């Protein structure tokens, strides 16, 4: 008789018995690996881990807080900058490759509204803050994303042709990106949707636009919902849309400063607050 298969080699009861030690980090390495495998593969809900984990989280509050040396922040930010530069270089190379292949197919609107190379995006000096060079690099990456998206015109056009509304919104988004005081940022897909990408445009006046391509199709009764997040870190609903062959173009009218724009999947009609993980996001301020 064949022994029944259990995720991680553990029954659910065995895994739950190990929950207290697991959340404290007190299992042997092979036991820890077995529990991780079980949780990753098991379809059952293991409430014990949430309950014990929530309790254990409070233990982190017990030690006396202590300020680390100021130099630690410098080292951390230097490491982050190195990491960020490597990612940007890789992303820019990819976007440039796509745009180079399709530049001649770019729309007339894009050609008329794309800024000169020496001023890809007009950055508000106040919002540029302490890292104007970094913000310029981010803005340049945003323009590359726009060029890549619009440059991929043959694919895009067939979808845009399906909807006059989509075409109008996309045209308005590109025009808005050309406004003198517009803030433009790249939209990056999260691990949930690594193929998603696009850009967000927030002009000084008028509607803002979110353009995201490469999105997964939705199940019936679902929509993509955009959220704007300001300094108070509270997500504010900014509209819903269903994708056309993975493309979503939305106009938004935020009534407060926007630092972050995020996209989640919500029930049809939208939600008052996000109920699912972020699928794609862009940062504009901070």
């Amino acid at each position, binding site marked *: 008789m064949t022994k029944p298969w259990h995720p991680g080699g553990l029954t659910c009861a065995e895994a739950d018995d190990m929950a207290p030690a697991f959340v404290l980090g007190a299992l042997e390495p092979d036991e820890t690996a077995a529990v991780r495998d079980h949780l990753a593969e098991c379809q059952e809900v293991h409430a014990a881990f949430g309950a*014990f984990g929530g309790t254990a989280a*409070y233990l982190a*509050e017990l030690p006396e807080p202590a300020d680390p040396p100021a130099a630690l*922040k410098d080292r*951390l930010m230097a*490491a982050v900058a190195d990491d960020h530069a490597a990612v940007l270089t890789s992303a820019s190379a990819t976007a440039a490759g796509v745009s180079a292949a399709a530049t001649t197919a770019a729309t007339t609107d894009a050609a008329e509204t794309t800024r000169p190379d020496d001023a890809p995006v007009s950055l508000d000096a106040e919002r540029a803050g302490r890292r104007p060079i970094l913000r310029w690099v981010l803005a340049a990456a945003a323009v590359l994303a726009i060029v890549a998206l619009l440059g991929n015109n043959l694919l895009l056009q067939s979808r845009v042709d399906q909807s006059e509304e989509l075409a109008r919104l996309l045209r308005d988004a590109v025009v808005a990106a050309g406004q003198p005081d517009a803030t433009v940022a790249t939209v990056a897909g*999260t691990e949930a949707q690594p193929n998603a990408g696009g850009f967000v445009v927030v002009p000084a006046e008028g509607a803002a636009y979110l353009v995201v391509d490469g999105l997964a199709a939705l199940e019936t009764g679902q929509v993509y919902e955009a959220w704007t997040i300001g300094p108070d870190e509270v997500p504010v609903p900014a509209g819903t849309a269903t994708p056309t062959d993975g493309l979503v173009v939305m106009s938004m009218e935020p009534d407060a400063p926007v630092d972050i724009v995020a996209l989640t999947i919500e029930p049809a009609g939208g939600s008052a607050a996000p109920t699912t*993980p972020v699928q794609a996001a862009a*940062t504009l301020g901070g």
Partner: protein
Amino acid sequence: MAAIVARDPSAIEALYERHKSMAFGLATRMTGDPALAEDIVQEAFLGVWRSADRYVGSRASARTWVMSIVHHRAIDAIRRRRPADGLPEPEAPTPPALVIDDAWAEVAGRLERSAIASAMTTLSEVQREAIELAYFSGLTQVEIAERTGAPLGTVKSRVRLGLLALRDALVEAGGRP
């Protein structure tokens, strides 16, 4: 966290400023070595920067997630000081089931440190010892049994019953564990 996912370095800087004291305090308490604690905190926040997209899919508060990474790396550092030991996956994210249900804000039911310390006093001495040796000293249950001379089964019971008692005391104090 969404800003970190969107690769904004100023967002990780803000997150560091908000949680650095707690993170450094925990790492120092666990290792007893401020220099090693600095390395742990730096690696933990760099890990947050590199894997924030994993956080977005979880249900933790940012604070809980950051501190779980600091704790995880501190245990790893403690065990590296002992031969032939260590956690199997230093980069592994905390499974969503292990953290508090609060995706977009900090923990709503947070308690003052004194209230949590007070809750710890409701545990029996042996329960508190087992939990502190596990969480702060990075000992496994087997090592706790060797250290205290108690049977392994007894140590497991002390850990489980201690956490249950702590949970009850935290709820009593108004927490939301």
